[in-house]
């Protein structure tokens, strides 16, 4: 029987259950606080971009900085907040003092947002900046939800595709991983964009100066990005897999998120990568 599509619109073309605009949620359970931006044109088939803040935890800034791109390109923004009190070392996937797990908390947050907005479950389009990029990379190695596109910008250091080093430096078992496994083949199957400013060479207080990181990855974010990019493509070649990691250098850009989004086109680069 033919359906009258005007009377029974496809679920995907229906508007989301959320009002358009900026919204926030206070955690009621094990999920995270979050900010979200729903563009006016959003439907239940609109792509969801999850953007993870750095250690300054400016999630609201993430939601707002992506909002005009969300309007132009029709995606929904979800910016969770890994509070310092609950998960001080979320970027390393370490549990907080009360046992809160950043991986589980993110998955519960995404699940909650999909339920309240009416979005279907779908592979993640995940972006992280600085500490958030460390989290996003490690989530793609370890997390339960599939990731279809990954964009990392200006991480301070990396989990290297090294099976000998313990996680989070490498892929080997560690107390942080517990029962989980860092799956390098899974990561190599994901298209990954790594963006870093060509001027992101300041060794500021937030930069990891661990001797192992300095010797294996380099002294600046720029140098570490180059080393990880080479290591990832080497790991792909060694396994006979296509190289799916791209490196994008931002001329004139340093480490400031606002500046990189507003002056150096980081938002456009990331959104195009994740959506197209």
């Amino acid at each position, binding site marked *: 029987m033919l359906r009258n599509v005007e009377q029974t619109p496809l679920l995907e073309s229906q508007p989301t259950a*959320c009002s358009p605009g900026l919204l*926030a949620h206070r955690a009621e359970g094990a999920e995270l606080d979050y900010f979200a931006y729903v563009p006016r044109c959003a439907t239940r088939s609109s792509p969801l971009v999850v953007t993870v803040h750095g250690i*300054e935890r400016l999630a609201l*800034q993430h939601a707002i900085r992506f909002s005009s791109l969300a*309007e132009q390109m029709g995606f929904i923004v979800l910016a969770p*907040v890994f509070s310092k009190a609950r998960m001080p070392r979320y970027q390393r996937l370490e549990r907080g003092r009360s046992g809160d797990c950043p991986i589980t908390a993110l998955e519960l947050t995404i699940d909650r947002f999909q339920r309240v907005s009416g979005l279907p479950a779908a592979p993640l389009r995940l972006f992280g900046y600085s500490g958030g990029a460390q989290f996003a990379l490690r989530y793609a190695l370890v997390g339960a939800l599939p990731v279809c596109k990954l964009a990392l910008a200006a991480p301070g250091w990396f989990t290297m595709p090294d099976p000998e080093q313990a996680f989070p430096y490498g892929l080997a078992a560690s107390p942080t991983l517990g029962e989980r496994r860092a799956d390098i083949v899974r990561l190599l199957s994901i298209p990954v964009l790594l963006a870093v400013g060509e001027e992101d060479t300041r060794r500021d207080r937030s930069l990891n100066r661990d001797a192992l990181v300095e010797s294996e990855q380099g002294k600046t974010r720029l140098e570490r990005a180059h080393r990880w990019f080479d290591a990832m493509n080497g790991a792909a070649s060694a396994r006979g897999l296509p190289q799916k990691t791209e490196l994008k250098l931002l001329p004139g850009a340093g480490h400031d998120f606002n500046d990189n989004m507003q002056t150096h086109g980081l938002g456009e680069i990331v959104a195009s990568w994740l959506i197209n």
Partner: protein
Amino acid sequence: MQAASNLSQLIQSAYRSFATRIADLSLAATLDPDARPAPGDLCIARVSRLGQHRHIELVTGRRAPLAVGDHVILAFGNRYASDQFEAIVPPTLDACHLVAGGGIASMALSRHTRMKAPTDIEPLGILRDANGAVLNLSRWGWPGVATPTNTPAPPHMILVVGTSMNAGKTTLCANVIRTMRASGLRPSALKLTGTGSGGDLWHFLDAGAYEAMDFGNVGLASTAGMDVRALDAAIGRLCAAVSPMADVIVAELADGILQRETSQLLQSSNLRSRAGSILFAASDPLGAIAGVELLASWGLDVSAVSGLMTASPLATREFSAFCSTPVVFADDADPQQIAANLFAPALAKSGKKHASQR
């Protein structure tokens, strides 16, 4: 009529009030002592007796002390201030009152018992240009711009309302502005209604607002008594003037939500759809609960409550025992945690438990 050369000297020697800041006084050619004043008309007046207002705020923000015999350049306007004066634009240029330190000439009808009698003024006349047209603030108010349909959505507006004058709305706005700055954002601050005065705007700027504007920028001396459609349109012009660099708008509606224009704007206006989220400032817990309930009855959800009430931990606790709406700025919480309470959609259907449901 005053001769042009004398008028120029008079204007130079008079204190020019903040409320007249957008006017181009070089257009003043005559001073008409027989005109019938209207809201926004510019006048020169002589201070004849000092009362409640012993200072006048200049366009620079400086509060200049007044003395009997001083000349002041004011704008006529109504005033609705439950803790100060109720006043209307008089029908003639007979002696009237300075009813706001920002420079509002008006006729006081009633005053709060804590107020002294208003300062008396004698209007010398209303300013006219060389063509005889009255100099009214509306001449210089921003006309607003048509919004093309394909432009990005405007910034989220956090609308601050409250139980009454002096419930802590402006302090709440300033705290929200600081929170937005701490979140790495550029907040634009708007005072949507009230009486011409720089105090709140300076407060917003000192808190870190990227810009601060009020109804004076769209040509109004005050908003009391205005037709709500005209007021809604003026608010639309003000919103259209917000810088494209602003990330979020923090906007304050003056007085309490029972005030005529405020209640009308909240019940039926374009402002309802412009407001992304609403914060409520209350001086006590019962007022806070009543405000949340009244706004809910108008289809508006309050994102968080704050205001003078939060100075008292006991009062805050009383509120929270009866209403699940979050309280903000009651302690030194992390700005990100506070921010998460500021964006519950104003027009979403409430799922909160209010007093009657608890």
